[in-house]
């Protein structure tokens, strides 16, 4: 297990180099428009001396490969550089935003687990029933609806129309993390559901197919032959086997959500990592974009590793190299 973990950590290095390289090539002059000095100083003309100073400070006079080496050098020391626009260290900016993203991710994953698993299990246990058809149909629709559009529909319906119809009595907050009008948790509802929408549909589908597959296995017949009730057979013998792939999906999805949900956070003005990156892209604030993407890549890799390691806990057949019997 330890050997496996170490090997996996080493495998992260090439991924890391690849991601940072691609990002660097994208900001090479001529690939994407925008002069960093202009981004920092704005449209006004500036004295050459100041320009020189800014160029030096951000090492913009160096050839690209030198800049890359400098950047990686700083990165290894925990320095992600300074934002062009805000003049603050990138790490500080993300340290501010990350807890917000984390909160949204937790809420999203809870929605995903509760609704996704329940829908999938019902769908499998009552195969071909009305509920099954309903689940199959709605998950098909959900996976094909763009997240930002779903978010906007929610805003229009729960924020505006519902308010009109009920004379202002019932509605939900549609932007920001807090307000005087609502408790903080209410602000989470719509963004969390929006963020979880596609994944919830996938979880329901995976759960359904895995459950159906598990229920067709020989060990289910063995369990029935013991005299167990259908319910015990389904929930004890079927579910535990069916859950293994679902847990994997949910785990990886949690990593993705923690990296910030750019669309959801933007639609709901949620001040998280994703929205920060979105804004930075618009402003060509490269240090933030680079830093943000690196943080996301890092998080996703770590979570994937944790998910892979947790396999061994769920599925006794999997033992990672090193302590084979």
């Amino acid at each position, binding site marked *: 297990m330890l050997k496996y973990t170490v090997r996996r950590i080493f495998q992260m290095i090439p991924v890391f180099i690849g991601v940072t390289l691609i990002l660097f090539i994208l900001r090479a002059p001529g690939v994407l428009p925008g002069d960093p000095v202009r981004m920092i100083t704005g449209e006004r003309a500036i004295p050459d001396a100041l320009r020189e100073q800014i160029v030096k400070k951000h090492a913009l006079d160096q050839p690209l490969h030198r800049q890359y080496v400098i950047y990686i050098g700083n990165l290894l020391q925990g320095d992600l550089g300074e934002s062009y626009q805000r003049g603050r260290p990138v790490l500080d900016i993300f340290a501010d935003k990350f807890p917000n993203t984390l909160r949204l991710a937790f809420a999203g994953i809870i929605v995903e687990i509760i609704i996704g698993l329940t829908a999938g299990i019902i769908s499998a246990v009552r195969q071909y029933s009305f509920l099954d058809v309903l689940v199959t149909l709605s998950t098909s629709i959900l996976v094909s609806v763009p997240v930002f559009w779903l978010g906007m529909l929610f805003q229009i319906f729960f924020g505006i129309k519902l308010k009109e119809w009920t004379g202002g009595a019932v509605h939900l907050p549609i932007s920001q993390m807090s307000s005087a009008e609502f408790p903080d948790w209410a602000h989470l509802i719509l963004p969390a559901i929006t963020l979880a929408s596609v994944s919830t549909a996938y979880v329901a589908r995976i759960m359904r197919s895995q459950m159906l597959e598990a229920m067709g*296995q*020989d*060990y289910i*017949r*063995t*369990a*029935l*032959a*013991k*005299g*167990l*009730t259908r319910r015990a057979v389904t929930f004890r*013998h079927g579910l*535990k*086997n069916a859950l*293994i792939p679902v847990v994997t999906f949910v785990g990886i999805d949690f990593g993705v959500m923690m990296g910030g949900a750019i669309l959801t956070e933007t639609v709901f003005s949620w001040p998280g990592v994703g929205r920060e990156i979105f804004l930075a892209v618009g402003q060509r604030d490269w240090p933030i974009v680079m830093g943000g993407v690196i943080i996301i890549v890092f998080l996703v890799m770590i979570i994937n590793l944790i998910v892979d390691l947790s396999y061994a806990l*769920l*599925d*006794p*057949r999997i033992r990672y190299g090193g302590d084979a*019997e």
Partner: protein
Amino acid sequence: MPALLEVRGLSTRFTTRDGIVKAVDGVSFALEPGKTLGVVGESGSGKSVTALSMMRLVAEPQGKIVGGEVLFKGADVLKMSEREVRDMRGNRIAMIFQDPMTSLNPVFRVGRQIGESLILHKGMSRKDAFDRAVQLLDMVGIPNARDRAKDYPHQFSGGMRQRAMIAMALACDPDILIADEPTTALDVTIQAQILELIMEMQERTGTAIIIITHDLGVVADIANDVMVMYAGRQVEYGESRHVFGDSLHPYTWGLLDSLPRHDSDEKGELVPIEGQPPSLINVPYGCAFHPRCPYAEEICRSEVPPLLATDTGHLSACHFSADPAFRRGMDRDQERVALK
């Protein structure tokens, strides 16, 4: 002795896209306490479905038991409530299956899986059930049973898994053990061990056994009674020595001829039965075996042969079973084939 189990006219059908499959068609037999019944036939002859029907484990809604009675100690299993059936399953009638690789749940420890029915039927605590599971594993010949009970199925070899399945089935000391092809998926060297174990367990616990197999050799050694099935119907049924020794059905002859013989130095050729078992959707008219039967005549194509008692007392379903010219037992063949 009164019959422990009596099956009368059991019929099970499956509805498939291609039509209705008559998997079991009017099968009747009886089992006395402590005795062994062998059920023999090719794949798809309805052996397993017969067993599953007795346990009411036929997958619904595709499968349906459409007729007959399964009297267990006088009570009709087919008329029992769901609850009564559950109380019987694994407790009074237990079952082991063909493939021990897939019949154990991969995510639960072996000891727990064995203990499960003890908790369910005997109301044992988890710990007592586990201790009993260890005893059972020891009884079926698993070394270091206490440690191995904590293993998962994939840590067991095929033979050990089948031993564990037997331990699981015997946990509640059932009246009947149904073994559905218990040795088919195992190595030849392990097969004999498992059969021996089943017989040893029968001696020790006095359970009656129904052993389902396509291997006549398995049945010949251990069964008191034998039922030969073809296309969902019984073709021959009775005491083992009569079915094998005084067989009056060409299908049974075919099965016997396709068996390698160990008891003579003569290297007799194996004679396979020509053709394939019929589709159970379009069972041949008349005697289901007639298209493959070297002795088939007009009546075989038009009338279903009744299952009738023969001189020795066993039952046979061939139109010619009563024909003295026909029943020269083992010295049939050449001339008869030449006649055709």
